Structures are given as structure tokens and as C-alpha cells.
């Protein structure tokens, strides 16, 4: 099963003729993802790595009604328009790779997406991968082994790092979801976790958070009242970061008392979620949480 993306996912690439769009179309195809069409205004009739290009989403869907997911590589100034187009054309899963979209634009489009029953992943995300099945994203697939651990992260490269550490300890991943590094993201941790909860291929979940905002606190609050549930292990980056400074991601900033490392760890631990002191402790805590039920990727 996995969540969000699997063997049945048929992908449209918006911004397919750009450098990133073209490169990652090839990488996704190599991984086995069914990329069936691409869009770049004014470039209809071309092919990128064999994938036909259309001027707009509606024309692409006329020819490829099987499309059920879109990945957006369009630059920040035009990305919101691309997402609205995909929503209005009826695509129900939209992965927004683009970074630096103004937060007011994101605010409106995630609210609009929700009102239309559309799942928006990102912005500023590496995307989603269900190892061995499908990847709709830019993550290097070599770090992701198939298995039964759900992974959700605000950070891209840190998600790859954690996946590779899990692999080294014999754990694989059912689906890894980059929720995105921006202040506002289409999916929050509780949204992704509720999907993992329903997924019979996921036994436990690793949450990779970071300082800034209150996504981790909100998740802890949601989790503490939840029953039944699957084990969660958390890691939070930014313990050594100073307050008031933006640490790379738009969302990674401690403002006053909001978004501190201490506040996140306290909320998570009070909700019964073990927090790893360093990324090297994640696998150990995961083994402990799974106890007798510990499941590993079959050799």
C-alpha cells in the first residue's frame, strides 16, 4: 500500500523543460515512476526524455486522463499559478518542489487546495518516495530502502540522512514524505501520520522536525489524544541554533518563546514520543519502541 504514491501513480511534471524539471524527470523515470506528461507554456509538441510536453494542464489531461499526481518545478513567481491550474484541472495530489514562494501565496493556495480536497505536498519539499514503488520528488533514491517505517520530515537532506541511517540498521521505509521547509506547508505532521496510521505496510513513524513554528507541538497535541496509534520517534534539528536567526529554511526561526528546541522536545516527550538526542540515536530508539515486534526489511 504505502501512502500518497505507489505503483498506480501517474505523474504530470509542471515545468518539465527547465533544468531541474528535465533532470528530475529523467531520475524519476529511471526509478520506475510513470511520468506520462509534462507542461511548459509554449513548448507543446516537444518531448523531454520521451515524455510529451503540453502548453497547459488541461490539454495534458485531455490526452492523459490517467494522470493522478503533479510535481511542480516552476519558479517561485509563477509556481502558485501552476498549482491553481493543477487544482482546477482536478489533480488530487500536487508536490511543490519550488522554494521561496511568498508565504501569503502559499497560505491562499493551501487553503484553496484543502477546500477542493486536494493534497498539496510542500512547497520547498524534496517530494515523496515509496521505495521500490514510486518516487515523485528529487531525493536520491539510493538512500531509501523499502521497509515498514514511515518517515516525515521538514528538511530534505536530513530526511535522506535519516533514511540512510535506518537502512544501515536494517530498517526500511514504507513511504518518506518531505512536508517542506516553509512556514506554511500543505501537509502537516498530523496529516501525514494519520495516513501512516491507516497504512498496513507501516509499523512505526519517524518524525524529523526542526526549530521554528509549532508544527511539532501541534503534532504532539494531536498525538497525545489519539487511540489506537503506532509508535513515533522524533528528532529535532537546531538545538544549537541561536534565537531570532533564520536557519536556512524560511520556517526555521525561533521568535521569542515560539519554536524553541526545548518547547518541541517538552511537548513531544509529554505526549509519550521519545526524542533522539542526535541523529545517530534514531535507530536505537526505534528498535526500543518496536520491542518484540521489531520488523526489519527482509534480506
Amino acid at each position: 500500500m504505502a501512502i500518497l504514491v505507489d505503483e498506480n501513480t501517474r505523474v504530470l511534471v509542471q515545468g518539465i523543460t527547465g533544468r531541474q524539471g528535465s533532470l528530475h524527470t529523467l531520475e524519476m523515470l529511471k526509478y520506475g515512476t510513470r511520468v506520462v506528461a509534462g507542461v511548459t507554456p509554449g513548448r507543446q509538441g516537444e518531448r523531454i526524455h520521451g515524455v510529451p510536453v503540453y502548453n497547459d494542464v488541461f490539454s495534458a489531461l485531455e490526452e492523459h486522463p490517467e494522470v493522478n499526481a503533479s510535481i511542480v518545478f516552476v519558479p517561485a513567481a509563477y509556481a502558485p499559478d501552476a498549482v491553481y491550474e493543477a487544482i482546477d484541472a482536478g489533480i488530487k495530489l500536487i508536490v511543490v518542489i519550488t522554494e521561496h514562494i511568498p508565504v501569503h501565496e502559499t497560505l491562499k493556495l493551501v487553503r484553496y487546495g484543502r477546500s477542493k480536497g486536494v493534497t498539496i505536498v510542500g512547497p520547498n519539499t524534496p517530494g515523496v518516495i515509496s521505495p521500490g514503488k514510486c518516487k515523485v520528488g528529487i531525493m536520491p533514491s539510493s538512500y531509501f530502502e523499502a521497509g515498514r517505517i514511515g518517515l516525515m520530515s521538514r528538511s530534505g537532506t536530513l530526511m535522506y540522512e535519516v533514511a540512510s541511517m535506518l537502512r544501515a540498521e536494517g530498517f526500511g521505509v514504507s513511504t518518506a514524505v518531505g512536508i517542506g521547509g516553509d512556514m506554511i506547508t500543505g501537509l502537516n505532521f498530523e496529516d501525514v501520520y494519520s495516513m501512516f496510521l491507516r497504512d498496513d505496510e507501516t509499523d512505526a513513524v519517524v518524525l524529523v522536525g526542526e526549530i521554528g513554528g509549532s508544527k511539532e507541538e501541534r503534532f504532539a497535541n494531536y498525538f497525545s489524544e489519539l487511540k489506537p496509534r503506532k509508535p513515533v520517534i522524533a528528532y529535532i534539528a537546531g538545538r544549537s541554533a541561536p534565537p531570532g536567526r533564520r536557519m536556512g529554511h524560511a520556517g526555521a526561526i525561533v521568535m521569542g518563546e515560539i519554536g524553541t528546541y526545548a518547547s518541541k522536545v517538552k511537548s513531544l516527550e509529554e505526549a509519550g514520543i521519545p526524542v533522539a538526542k542526535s541523529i545517530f540515536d534514531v535507530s536505537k530508539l526505534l528498535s526500543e519502541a518496536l520491542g518484540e515486534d521489531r520488523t526489519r526489511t527482509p534480506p
Partner: protein
Amino acid sequence: MLEKLGVPVEPSCVVSSPDDSSLSSCLKAIGPPFVVKAQVRGWGRGKRGLVIPAENEGDAVRAVKELFSASYDGQPIRYVMVSKRVQVLREYYLALMLDADAQRILLLASREGGVDVETLAQRPGGLLLQPIDPLVGLRGYMARRVASYLGVEVPEVGRILSAMYTAFWRYNMILLELNPLALTDKGLVAIDRKAIVDDDALQLNDDLRGFASRYEEELSEIQRVSVKEGFAVVELGEGGVAVVGNGAGLTMATMDYVEQVGGRPGLFLDLGGGASSERVEKALSLIMSLGKYDRILLNILGGITRCDEVARGILQALEKTSNRHLKISVRLSGFKEEEARSLLESRGIRAFQTLEEAVKEVIS
């Protein structure tokens, strides 16, 4: 800009130096009594003596001079505002803020002005919170609710809220605060206004470009280069380990680990998208040019990035330095990492497979 949209403000003008030629005509136009305020990026200037009342033009000129010789958090004062001092009967607090995690906007109102919002939030009943769904926008009932809470006239506060809401969207504001919003004998006046705008909108929003260039003038050399190259840099302290990584979360986690095992992180540098040889070279050259860091830790999780290219970038940067004390430790993972390691090690740079080893090396 708030005034143009319909927020009542007291007469005022801004000068950029103590000898600004517009100062005397400004003082004449406003007329005494005055209040002279340093323009700063932050809060609490009143408590730091950066707001000075002045009874006449002579006092005001002296106050302007005094403020330009002062500083705020180590930053020089670049602009000073001279305003008409108004007779305040009551002070309120009114703000719009982005409530990012709840995906909405919050309208905040308080019967107490001049107090910071965190303090207000801790007092029971100290703050009225009115959520605004961006798809619905500001509605009439919200103004009525705020007016009845504050005890002011509905049309007057309605006009102010509507102007604030317009400004919030037009200028990509994350926070817009009128604190205090003063009740005077001439009605409500916003005597102190503060806004935080979204960095990502600075280059995309025509209405903000003027502010963007003013902001760039204030950047240090390292910040200027970082903006140009798309690096994210935060300086933590001279002499510590400069931590360079690709990706914000990974770089933070690396810094955290350095600290956990007894090292001291001195600088955070996220290379951002794509760790090409050129970007790595620029980042390392930038750090070395500061002359504050003798230890650099590089953590590159390559994936499809070619690690041998990254290694070449490191070597190119090193060729340009004469710092004999420089210690670089590298952790590389990804495509062509073996080639990268042997390239680096042939030149005496330790390159490791795991972060643990690389950190151990750099703090030893």
C-alpha cells in the same frame, strides 16, 4: 504607506542624518511639541532611551543628533523620525499576524497599548483573538467585535482594520502592529507602527523593491555574498567550527552534533540548492576571507551531486589561502564519493564516510 491606505497617523517625517537639509522645514511643518524616535529593526526602543520628547525646534534638533550617535543592538541608527506629539487619552493594541501553522491570519486587539504582545497574551482576558480565513477575508462583524471590545466607534476602527488588512496583503506582511493605537481628542491615531515582511516577497513584489534595496545597504559583506550566491549564513561566534552543509536541516543537525560531542559551532552555512564545485569553492573562500575560523567542517550528502566535483571545489578554495592553521574535515556521501575521497586525501585533507569521524577529526 499605511497613511495612504487610511490609517490615521500623526504628522511626521524621517531624516537620514543629523544634517539632513529637510529637517528644519520638517520641524516647521509639524510644529511643537515633538517626539523624536530612532527607527530600528526591533522592539523596546523606548526602554533603551531611543525615544526623546522635545518641546521646541532646538530640543528636537539636539535629540536628532543624540539619536544618530546612539546604536541599537550594535547597529548604527540610520533613520530618525520626528513626529508631532499628540495628547493621548487612552492607548490600545491592534495587530494582524500570520498564524502559519493554523493556516490563517489572526486579528489581535487589546485595551492596553504600549505593552508587548507576549505580555498581553499571558494576562487572562488581555487579548481579543479573531481568526481570519484568507479565503473569506475581513468581515464587518470582526470590526464590530473589536469596536465593542475596545469601546471605540465601529466606523473608525472598521476603516483602520480594512486599511491594515489591505496593507497586510499588498506588502506581504507577516506581522503588522499598531502599538499603541492612541485615542486622542481628534480620534484614533496610530502613533507607533511596526511590520515584518516576508523575505521571499522582497524581489517579487514591486511595492517592496524600494525596501529591499534599503535593506541591502545595511548588509555586511558576508551577508551580501550569501544573498547573491543563495547561501544561508548565520555567524555564531569567532573561533568556533564553521559548519558547512547542503540543506538547512542537515547543516543544523551537523552543528548540533558538533556541540553534543564537546565542540563549539562558530558559523552555519547552508549551501542551498546543489553542491557544485563552484558553490563549494565560493562558500569556503567566503569563510576563509573572514579570518575568524580556523576549523571548517563540510558535510555533503550528495545523492546525484558528483562528489568528485565537490572535492575539486574544496581544493580550488584551498589553493587561494595561506592560512597554515586551517583545518578542514570533510564528510562526503553520494555519487563518485570514492574518487572524491582519494582526490582529497592525496592533498592531505581527511575525508570521511561518516559524520561521527569527520566531527571527531575537526574538534580534536
